[in-house]
């Protein structure tokens, strides 16, 4: 702020910052009003226009107002990959949470905890994203397939091992488990969960788990 408000170079910097941060195009009046008294907005605008001419970002005039925008010839760089960042739906996140804590779980287990039937797409999405894998079959009537989490899941959530999943104590510490926690409420420790019986390879007698997985995924 030591530089004079009337130093043209300083005013140019101000105009540059104002245009960059503005929520929409600014008129000359807008600029003048926000600049210090006596600053020459017209000269500054011209200086900004010259400075940015031919650059990747340019000054554009729309209906007597001014804004910075990317150079039109670089539009291909912008438009080609216009897509939303990948966001997990609420249902997907909830399903993932149940699988993580209660693994190995069957589809029926998940539905029982969530209290709603599981959308087919939800589990498929989690499998496709690589967060969830087929773990085996439970030795119970119908021999239902069980699900568990993958290494990618650990990576996504920066966990060294499944034992690092926060437990009930941390949920309480984070203020999540507050009131109305039933007496018997327990958060299972998935690292202790064992299903020695039903590893896929044991079950099918061959090591080609992916093939089995394909069978399964296509089945429904």
């Amino acid at each position, binding site marked *: 702020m030591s530089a004079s408000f009337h130093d043209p170079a300083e005013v140019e910097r101000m105009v540059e910052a104002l245009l960059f941060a503005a*929520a929409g195009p600014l008129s000359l009046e807008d600029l003048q009003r926000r600049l210090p008294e006596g600053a020459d907005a017209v000269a500054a605008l011209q200086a900004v226009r010259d400075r940015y001419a031919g650059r990747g970002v340019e000054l554009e005039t729309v209906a007597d107002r001014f804004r910075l925008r990317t150079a039109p010839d670089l539009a291909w760089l912008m438009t080609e990959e216009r897509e939303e960042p990948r966001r997990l739906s609420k249902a997907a*996140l909830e399903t*993932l949470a149940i699988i993580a804590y209660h693994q190995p779980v069957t589809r029926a287990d998940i539905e029982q905890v969530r209290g709603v039937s599981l959308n087919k797409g939800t589990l498929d999405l989690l499998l496709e994203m690589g967060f969830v894998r087929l773990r085996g079959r439970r030795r119970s009537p119908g021999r239902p397939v069980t699900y568990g989490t993958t290494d990618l899941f650990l990576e996504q959530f920066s966990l060294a091992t499944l034992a690092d999943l926060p437990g009930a104590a941390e949920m309480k510490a984070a203020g999540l488990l507050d009131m109305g926690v039933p007496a018997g409420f327990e958060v299972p420790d998935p690292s202790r969960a064992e299903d020695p019986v039903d590893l896929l390879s044991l079950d099918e007698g061959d090591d080609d788990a992916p093939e089995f997985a394909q069978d399964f995924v296509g089945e429904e």
Partner: protein
Amino acid sequence: MSADLFQSQLEFEAADGAAEAGEALMVDIDGYEGPLHVLLMLARQQKVDLLKLSITRLAEQYLAFVQEARRRRFSLAADYLVMAAWLAFLKSRLLLPRPERPAEKGPEPEEMAAALAFRLMKLEAMRKAVENLKVRPQLKRDVFTRGDPEAQVVIPSRQVDATLYDLMVAYVSQRTKEAQRLYTPMAVEAFPLDDARDRLRDMLPRLKAWTGLRTVAPRAHPDAGPSQASFVASTLSASLELVKDGLLEARQLDAFEEIYLRSREVGFPLELTP
């Protein structure tokens, strides 16, 4: 001792007018800070390197602080008293002549004093860190990214936008929902049919004229006992039984209209069971 000794927060008004003199009690703490914060504030008044701090003087200042706070009837958290006790103990050990034989147990008082000074230094370091962080250029306070939301091109990130915290929240919200599903509603208290029948029999002599069912049924208590609906329903059921027994007549002018009851003039003799 009053229970509020144990309240976790305490609030002091800043003693604005306190003198600059070193001994003056400068109370300027908010509710979220503990005795260590007070000690740090007092230590600063000694204006020396924290490691060269006079612990005996610090102990005196702290005890004076605690006494003053209590004199003014400020409720004081237990934390403050524990620290006061410990400081008084430390001070006495520092002042007592060293016994001939080495202390039979526990660390040397000088070591304890140094440990305290070190803890104060650590806290002081974090105090400085807060100040340093506060003056950093902060997004949307000091520095601004591009402001035009219309023109913004979303550059996708390959990463999935979910944190471990999100996962915990998702998990807990479901498990607590589940807990709610297991909730069993309170049993509804009903007006027993037997009671309704007995009551209606007792009322028969008074039902010479047509009387509305709602008038006949008992009034519900607003806070306890069966609901009004239960009283009406049970009384209706009982009245139908009495009609069947020939003791009562009932009529209703139209659907959903009030039902009227009156005792029957001529009928079968009452058969009271012994």
